[in-house]
């Protein structure tokens, strides 16, 4: 006996698809931000960390696309482009913050990665709950792993941003 009509199920899947496309866009934006920030960083330790972050972000971007396949839908090329565009907008915004707040470019980009990281946690976190709500264990397992990993990354990113803040804002040193 089906407790949910086919129509309602398809409606729920349609709505999940919309969110997963959102996840894809946000993750693309995060990956693109990390990719664009890397060449601006001089500090070898920070560079090393961002290189690791980029590898994970690229993997997560691919897995965001897998989320759509898990519900029988296709990832969107348009959302990828939109994600890259979103990253560029954030970089522009970082430039505005840099100009108005007097911080160096690389640090403001790093700060934008921190914001984008939080968006990513929320996006995958919601996808995790959608997986639970629809009874899709594959979705839940994948997003739970990514969300937890993103929390760890976020904590470290936050420390990096705060640690480098004074040297960037007060001393205008490149990082």
């Amino acid at each position, binding site marked *: 006996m089906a407790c949910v009509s086919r129509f309602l199920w398809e409606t729920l899947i349609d709505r999940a698809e919309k969110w997963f496309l959102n996840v894809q866009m946000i993750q693309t934006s995060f990956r693109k931000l990390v990719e664009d920030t890397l060449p601006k960083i001089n500090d070898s330790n920070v560079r090393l960390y961002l290189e690791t972050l980029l590898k994970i972000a690229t993997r997560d971007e691919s897995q965001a696309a897998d989320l759509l396949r898990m519900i029988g839908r296709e990832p969107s090329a348009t959302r990828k482009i939109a994600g890259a565009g979103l990253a560029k907008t954030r970089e522009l915004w970082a430039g505005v913050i840099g100009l108005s707040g007097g911080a160096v470019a690389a640090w403001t980009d790093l700060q934008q990665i921190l914001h984008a990281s939080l968006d990513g946690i929320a996006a995958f976190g919601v996808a995790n709950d959608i997986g639970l709500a629809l009874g899709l264990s594959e979705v839940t397992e994948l997003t739970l792993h990514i969300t937890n990993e993103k*929390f760890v990354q976020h904590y*470290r990113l936050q420390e990096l941003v705060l640690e480098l803040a004074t*040297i960037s804002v007060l001393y205008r040193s490149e990082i």
Partner: protein
Amino acid sequence: MAGLSFPCGLTVAEDGTIFIAEGGTTWPTRPWLPSRLLRLSTNGKVDVLAVEEEGGLRGLCAKDGFVYATAKGDYTSRLLKIDAKSGERTVLFDKMPDGGWHEPGGPVFGPDGLVYFAQGSVAQQGIIEPAGFTVDIARHPEAHDVPGQDITLTGNNIWSYDPVIPHSDSVSTGAFKPYGTPADKGERIKGELWCSTGVYRARSDGTEPELLAWGIRNPYGLAFNEGGELYASDNDYEEKGNRAVGEDPDRVWHIRNASKPHGTVSVPDWYGYPDYAGDGLPLWDTKHAPNRGMQAKQLIENPPPLAGPAAVLFEPHTCLAKMDFCRSDEFGHRGRLFLAQWGTLAPLNTLRPEALRRGFQVSVVDVKSGRSEPFMRNREAGPASAHKGNGGIERPVDCKFHPDGRSLYVLDFGAVSVRRNTMLSFAHTGVLWRVSRDFYGKHS
């Protein structure tokens, strides 16, 4: 000289030029300021000789036109050689395991012309624990201690709540392992030359490094006496967390292997970290039962022989820092060790009220008898900022004699606010003091 930002070490060159290291990122790690090597010339002019881009300058010594510096970095600490005129920098070593709590120690030159340096422990209490305010596991999640000899572990791991993972259960962590990695009973860990808690020496060009000792928790100060004997300062365990230790004395160790010819130390001496207190008792002895947290259990199944006893013991939580032996009759106290005691971190590291005012002074120490007495301190115990309007010293971090033997320079780290769950350090509050002896024999 005032307005220094987080100064961590000084040295006085043969010609009287004074060099001061500003740590950049210190205790705690934020804020991060430029880590500068300042030069105070004999004509009174102050300039910046170099800026250590990777941050973390700590100890200094000057010899033959170069300044040698230890620096704390990412996962490893460095020993640097900096041209005292041009500021040109050479990295002699970048291999001391760090990324955790404690500091690179020294450097100091021995009578044999070798440079001696050290590295403190990565874990605060023998096992990495979460401690968000100094961000060790956030910035360096893979950091862990490294032993100086082959050891076998007991597998006495500790459980702690992982603060960075949502939906987290407690995680198990073992000794000499990164946070969240348990050790197995009977697991063997290979000893390495570049261990944590080690004291090393090498030629001044960075060749032929040799490990003399390990098992010293935080060997920040190194000094040779006129007899050519090497001593190291060391700090007590903290009374907090899942491996808490009560009433562990601060101590000065005699590094006996330093008296052996270079290249002949086949087995480094072991001074007890991570299992023994400064008094030679195991951390699980009832005398070291903590009044908060879980008492420590044994971590090394087959401990090497202890190299102690300590030359000098101090009250817990005075925080021993850098030091120098007096070689001058003119100054007085010839042969005695002058030791900066940075001052307590209570109530952060212990809740015992008697620890709240310990340290904040320079002591004069007889390393042969083990006796010590205050040499320079405020009228009232504690840092000057605790007694508004009186002035005085905050947290002495280093003291070095001028080569002419007439003056002792005392480097004051500056103002630090310690609370029960965090500490805050304030830039531009550090001071360089000079103490001289007048015609009547009084020091001022």
